[in-house]
């Protein structure tokens, strides 16, 4: 019999922390799907390493959310015992890997944001979030470099790699706006000095991404209609499939440990 989901008391700080934890877990899980399938051995190791960094960030964030919530939950319960509507990650990060170009475009969109975000969060008045930010910032700096080098290679590579990279940019563009969205609960945390206003990161993000894309001889779409919903639990069908794989063991054998 499958285990029931937990009920989370989503105070603003718990929700805020879970959103970032879910981002890291879901993208880390997506990248881990490449394990054994990457275009070459070095890339297989690179993607596994990036996934590991993200998983580590997720663990720290879930553990902190558990301490703040103080309802006896822990990192595993948050990861394994919430259903799809309780997940708070960005829609961008649950999008399927597709081909390698799509994975790298998703990665550069997110990593450039994450690098700016964590660097800004190092100044948070919340000491735990500031400490997690200091570690994550160094890691995401490597992720930015890795993914932007690939975008340039793919865009400025063959006709086929250029076409695939451009298609990925066009398809994923509408998911980028959600990274900069701020709701009322987050506004309170921003005013309290705990969170930073993600909207203020947009100009720098756009500049960095534009520079990479230009160097890659690719172009960014002109449309600015943006898809949102992940932060409040309205996900694409893809997340449900991802979670059924991620959670199957714990749902079938509750409390199973290594």
């Amino acid at each position, binding site marked *: 019999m499958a285990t029931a989901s937990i009920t989370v008391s989503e105070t603003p700080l718990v929700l805020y922390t879970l959103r970032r934890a879910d981002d890291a877990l879901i993208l880390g899980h997506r990248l881990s799907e490449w394990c054994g399938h990457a275009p070459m051995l070095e890339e297989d190791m690179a993607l596994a390493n990036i996934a*590991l960094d993200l998983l*580590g960030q997720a663990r720290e964030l879930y553990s902190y959310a558990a301490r703040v919530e103080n309802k006896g939950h822990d990192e595993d319960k948050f990861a394994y015992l919430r259903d799809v509507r309780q997940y708070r990650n960005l829609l961008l990060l649950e999008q399927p890997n597709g081909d390698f170009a799509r994975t790298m475009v998703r990665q550069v969109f997110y990593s450039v944001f994450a690098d700016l975000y964590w660097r800004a969060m190092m100044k948070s008045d919340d000491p*735990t979030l500031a*400490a997690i930010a*200091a*570690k994550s910032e160094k890691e995401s700096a490597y992720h930015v470099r*890795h993914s932007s080098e690939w975008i340039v290679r793919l865009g400025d590579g063959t006709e086929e790699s250029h076409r695939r990279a451009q298609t990925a940019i066009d398809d994923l563009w509408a998911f980028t706006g959600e990274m900069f969205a701020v709701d009322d609960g987050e506004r309170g945390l921003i005013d309290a000095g705990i969170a930073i206003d993600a909207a203020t990161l947009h100009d720098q993000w756009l500049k960095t991404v534009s520079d990479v894309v230009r160097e890659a001889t690719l172009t960014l779409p002109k449309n600015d209609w943006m898809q949102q919903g992940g932060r409040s639990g309205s996900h694409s069908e893809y997340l449900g499939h991802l979670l059924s794989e991620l959670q199957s063991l714990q749902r079938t054998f509750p409390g199973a440990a290594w």
Partner: protein
Amino acid sequence: MVAVLSDSDLRQRAWDAAATVVDPEIPVLTIADLGVLRDVQVHDGRIEVAITPTYSGCPAMNMIILEIELALERAGFARPTVRTILSPAWTTDWMSEDGRNKLRKYGIAPPQASSSRRALFGDQQVACPQCGSDNTEVLSEFGSTSCKALWRCKSCREPFDYFKCH
């Protein structure tokens, strides 16, 4: 006769025991060489050890915690509390000079001295740990573990691991 040890003697003995624990992925380096061992405290005879992870997702941390517990028990202490601290964030600057030399002898190029953002992204000059040549190139930013990159020496043609600045 049982000698009565002061807290500072106890602390030193506990530190020495914990400092023998090696990184399971780079067994020539102790956690003291790496700067992962941050603090040892004694409270009423109970030992508390503080360590800091190298990378958020470093899979060696659980192993290191277990090894610290075992090392202290072997040295005659009761089971210690091992605490993981995140702040200040670990940096390769904490790696001892001794540790850097041991790494080089082991065949891994040690991290460059300063891990400022400039060093993270500036021109990297990494000497080959085999022949010492500066004529080297990066093959991949990500090597066999999260803390290493894969490099190649153009002089002796050998590939080698480089412990990345962090």
